[in-house]
């Protein structure tokens, strides 16, 4: 049964046949469920039941892991806030003891062949090691802005990548290393150029050897975050460019980048010159570019960042002539043009991916919002205090928050429906970061931090438990129905 030459995808009867065969292969244990899901995805087959099952398992694991980490953070916060009464030496014994016990646990679990549990505990060891650095810093009153501590944490976590081939250790390393470069730039108010070198030298060989696209994109994410902040510090302190404009420009660039991927996905006939940059150019990776989209919106959701940014522009306008960010304007117009092109192509395209019009709707909203804000910035009044937001800017702040929460939720749905675990993970993280940020903005004084994390963690663990129970019940019912 030859495949359609133009699309390389089975059509009509071919699709039905392949779907039936895939189900049979799974039932006869010829291929695993995960392999079947991948094959179904490859040939554009909607395989709802299996997809749902796999994504549910993933959701449960993610929720349980985040819940466990939250409870852990809550416990650390509780100890950090209350342990002044314990003598210094005893505190150190506790820190070293807990870490040693956790590592013994990993060794023991591995010996008993509890592979997944040992991975989870080893990951927790990486986090505990970081907590240990911070608690020791607290005991000796080492500066709270301690970039070296974060670097030492990252370099201590890196060897865990060799202990277990699971990708989470390298990912944790990339995340911590990225935090280091941000803390360093924030503390020293200067650009930090070693990060890309350290990151690439230590992680690219892993990504290459394991042919791991997820890791490759995390490295890419790290570089994007670094570039954002590097430009922020470098441009702000070296060339005195208002940081709001550089963040807005980078958002427009990210939107263009995403939409080009979108255009390719709906019009495969277009010259695919971006494919030369494979795997950064294909449709999958367009979805994986959501971090550069969500990051600037996340930054703009902070009242203090917006108020300081506006004041920064107003201050510079007083000092010299009004700065004309022509580059931002041009990139913004290009972003609009690419958006319109996307709408036109989607209208005439025979291939309409799920949620495509909603995706474009999200981009229309955010690009228009950023553009309106950008044009409005020079006209906001100058405030007396950096944390004071001009009342004219308040609606923008609300809309940025709406875009952040709405966007995160939207991409979670995209991740679930399209079974893109990467999108789901990034959007979930974005939502959690947004909730945390708003908590620290508004409820900091109302609810104890440790209690907040413990309650949050228990809720997540409870949700994971209920989800798993629900799925089991569903499976049981389905079994009963099929037996009848």
């Amino acid at each position, binding site marked *: 049964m030859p495949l359609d030459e133009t699309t390389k995808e089975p059509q009509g009867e071919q699709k039905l046949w392949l779907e039936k065969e895939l189900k049979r292969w799974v039932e006869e244990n010829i291929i695993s469920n995960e392999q079947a899901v991948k094959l179904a995805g490859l040939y554009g087959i909607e395989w709802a039941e299996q997809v749902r099952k796999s994504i549910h398992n993933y959701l449960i694991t993610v929720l349980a892991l985040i819940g466990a980490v939250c409870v852990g953070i809550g416990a650390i916060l509780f100890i950090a806030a209350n342990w002044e009464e314990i003598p210094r030496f005893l505190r150190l014994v506790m820190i070293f003891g807990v870490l040693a016990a956790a590592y013994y646990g990993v060794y023991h679990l591995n010996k008993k062949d509890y592979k997944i549990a040992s991975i989870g505990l080893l990951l927790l060891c990486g986090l505990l090691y970081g907590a240990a650095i911070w608690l020791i810093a607290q005991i*000796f009153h080492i500066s709270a802005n301690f970039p070296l501590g974060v670097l030492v944490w990252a370099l*201590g976590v890196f060897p865990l990548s060799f202990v277990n081939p699971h990708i989470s250790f390298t990912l944790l390393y990339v995340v911590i290393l990225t935090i280091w470069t941000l803390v360093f730039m924030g503390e020293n108010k200067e650009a930090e150029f070693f990060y890309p070198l350290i990151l690439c030298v230590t992680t690219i060989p892993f990504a290459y050897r394991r042919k791991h696209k997820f890791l490759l994109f995390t490295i890419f994410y790290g570089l994007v975050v670094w570039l954002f902040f590097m430009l922020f510090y470098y441009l702000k302190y070296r060339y005195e460019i208002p940081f709001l404009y550089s963040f807005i420009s980078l958002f427009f660039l990210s939107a263009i980048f995403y939409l080009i991927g979108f255009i390719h996905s709906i019009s495969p006939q277009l010259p695919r010159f971006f494919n030369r940059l494979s795997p950064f150019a294909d449709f999958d990776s367009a979805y994986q570019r959501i971090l550069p989209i969500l990051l600037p919106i996340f930054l703009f959701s902070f009242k203090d960042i917006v108020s300081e940014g506006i004041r920064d522009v107003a201050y510079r306008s007083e000092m010299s002539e009004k700065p004309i960010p022509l580059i931002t304007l041009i990139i913004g117009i290009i972003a609009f043009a690419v958006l319109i092109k996307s709408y036109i192509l989607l209208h005439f395209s025979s291939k309409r991916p799920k949620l495509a019009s909603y995706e474009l709707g999200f981009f229309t909203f955010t690009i228009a919002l950023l553009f309106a804000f950008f044009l409005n910035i020079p006209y906001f009044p100058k405030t007396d205090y950096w944390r004071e937001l001009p009342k004219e800017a308040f609606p923008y702040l609300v809309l940025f928050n709406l875009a952040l929460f709405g966007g995160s939720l939207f991409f979670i749905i995209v991740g679930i429906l399209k079974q893109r675990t990467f999108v789901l993970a990034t959007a979930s993280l974005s939502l959690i970061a947004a909730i945390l940020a708003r908590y*620290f903005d508004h409820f900091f004084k109302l609810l104890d931090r440790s209690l907040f994390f413990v309650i949050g963690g228990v809720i997540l663990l409870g949700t994971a438990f209920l989800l798993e129970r629900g799925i089991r019940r569903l499976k049981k019912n389905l079994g009963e129905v099929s037996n009848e």
Partner: protein
Amino acid sequence: MNKIAFFIAVILQFAVLGSITAYRYSVIAVGKTVYLMTVPVDPRSLFQGDYVVLDYEISKLDSKELEEGGKYIYCNEGSYVYVKLRPHPEKKWWIAVAITEKLPELKENEAVIRGKLKKTESVSEQDEEGKWLGYRYIYRIKYPIDSYFVPEGKGKSIEDAQRERKEVLVEVRLNALGDAVITGLLIDGVRQ
């Protein structure tokens, strides 16, 4: 699981944590005790409970007020400087007497603290008749002892004490290389 890598990773992490701890203990054990006058504010660290941000009298130095004077020091990003300290003739705390780019030689009643030079300003000086007298230099220095961790909620009481113009001193141990470890905080002579 790769067992060799596992043991290397564990040993490495414990060695790092152990060396941070051991070095701080060594400074406390052999270091000279000095008291520094402070100017605190009170933010909060997410993972470390409450802490008071400390600014010191010796964070801003004027070459004219230094007993041994001071020359122009070009502020390279991240360059270290050494500040020589001596006890105040009347008060309990210590004062800066010199600033150098290299580790200075110390007498019996002197100590040295290492900091990062953040800025050097040159101020041109003239007498009443407008005759040029030369330059004096203002140095802004950041020390790695800018945080003092306290039990949650206690930071505000230290800030209040400062606002009420009470004498808030930090007890610091300094080794011969200028490394510092905070060992206590005193408000009007009472250890907190």
